[in-house]
């Protein structure tokens, strides 16, 4: 069983890791995963059909299971244990649900430990370090993730399910909640860079438009652009006034007076119509 477990984990690593390493080319969709697993275990037809079955269920992301793990496990069980499609799915999908949680947990929480390193390579302009970090994180994440499949095959489906059921519900809920709250830190960092007392109202405006008026982000952006354009024209008008004033104050009145008058008249034409 060890060889089977390693091969299955490899399939997950290739399809899932490969998809995100290289352009999200969709080699993580059940259709493709089924094909790959079929090739590895020597039954392409079975693999492709299992992929089609899971793919039809998952269209539009309807499945709450992580589809790569689910497909690999279902295909493996079906080819190796020789059970039929239905039974293989019934064994694989619950583990896929657990895998979805693990994936979220790895990406959002475990990988947080590398966040300081990102700042460090940037602060030291350590470009080689950046490359190593980037791909190192990739490897670690998907390697760890493949272990779910590895142990599932090794231990057999049933015991794994039991184990999963024993994790306290409260703990799981808390871990899930971290994923919802952690982006706050990222946004706070962005705010540090953009915030100014003058502009802070716009942060809350964006919040209200999304939270209360239920506008999707394209519409918030459109409203934002409208505001920004109107603001811009007003600012330009005021800048012109200020500059005129400075010139007046500087006593350059005599020379520029005619030009200025014409100019500001023109501007007025622009702004008030």
């Amino acid at each position, binding site marked *: 069983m060890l060889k089977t477990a390693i091969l299955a984990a490899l399939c997950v690593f290739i399809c899932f890791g490969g998809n*995100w*390493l290289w*352009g999200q*080319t*969709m080699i993580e969709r059940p259709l*493709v995963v089924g*094909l790959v697993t079929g090739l590895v275990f020597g039954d392409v037809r079975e693999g492709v*059909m299992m*992929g*089609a*079955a899971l*793919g039809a269920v998952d269209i539009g992301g309807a499945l709450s299971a992580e589809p790569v793990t689910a497909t690999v496990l279902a295909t493996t069980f079906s080819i190796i244990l020789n059970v039929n499609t239905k039974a293989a799915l019934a064994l694989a999908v619950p583990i896929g649900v657990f895998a979805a949680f693990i994936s979220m947990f790895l990406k*959002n929480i475990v990988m*947080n*430990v590398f*966040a300081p390193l*990102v*700042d460090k390579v*940037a602060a*030291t*302009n350590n*470009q080689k370090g*950046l490359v190593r970090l980037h791909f190192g*994180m990739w490897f670690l994440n998907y390697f760890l993730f493949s272990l779910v499949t590895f142990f599932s095959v090794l231990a057999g489906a049933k015991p794994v399910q039991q184990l999963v059921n024993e994790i306290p519900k*409260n*703990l799981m*809920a*808390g871990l899930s*909640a*971290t994923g*919802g709250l*952690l*982006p*706050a830190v*990222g*946004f*706070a*960092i*962005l705010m540090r*860079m*953009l*915030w100014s007392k003058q502009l802070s109202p*716009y*942060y*809350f*405006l964006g*919040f*209200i438009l*999304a*939270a*209360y008026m239920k506008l999707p*982000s*394209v519409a*918030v*952006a459109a*409203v934002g652009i409208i505001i*920004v354009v109107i*603001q*811009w024209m007003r600012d*330009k008008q005021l800048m012109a006034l200020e500059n005129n004033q400075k010139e007046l104050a500087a006593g350059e009145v005599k020379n520029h007076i005619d030009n200025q008058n014409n100019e500001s008249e023109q501007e007025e034409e622009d702004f008030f119509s």
Partner: protein
Amino acid sequence: MKFTKNVSPDDRKMLNSIFWRSFTVFASRAGATKAHAPGFMYSILPAIDRYYKNDPKGQTEALERETTWYNITQNVGTFVMGLVASMEKKNSQDPDFDANSIVALKTSLMGPLSGIGDSIFWGVLRVIAAGIGISLASQGSVLGPILFLVIYNVPSILTRYYLTYIGFTLGDTFIEDMYESGSMKLLNKAASTLGLMMIGSMTATMVTFKSTLAIPIAGGKPIEIQTYLDQLWQGLVPLAVTLGCYWLLSKKVNVNWILLGVLALAIVLGLVGIV
């Protein structure tokens, strides 16, 4: 394409390099607070190295700018990469350029571009490709997965390629215009305004919290706390946590402590049964 023609050979080399690197943009994920920042940094390196050739300080600053949260549908994200490249170019040439606008613009583009990108690529294109692929595959044909990959990837990769150039070219013209009309200050104000609005809207939609706490009533239906929280202020907890983090950051608290704090908070809330 007009957009790819007017680019100098050197810029072209750089943009191609960005294009290729962009494939790996989502390879790593540095947690929920930075998301795909390292991938973005890796992709934009060619521009940084080119425009700050003998200027390690400039390189460092540019890299540090890009360490913030990044996440855009990757097939359209190259537009932002091209744009950032053109802004770094300007920044390297002109000491007056306000480098903050780079982050502001990038931030304000994330929400809308992902909204559009996800709809087109994950919504429409992938579904069409899968529909065709599954039909064939369910009869056991290997053509199913293959056609699926081809139908999905050809338009995706073309989009990725051209948007790299379009972002660069448009950005270049636009920024040049701003300079000539002396409106850089206004550009920065506009970009920051838009950026803050988008972060505000992302706070509302992407920072999530839902209490499952319910007070049981003897002989009545339970009272759900979340209902009252929403009545107080929609998204109260996400907003409070985000502003709290911001406040801590502005008090120079180390970001790692903040991260830990949020983690601990969430787990404790879970353990005591609030979420």
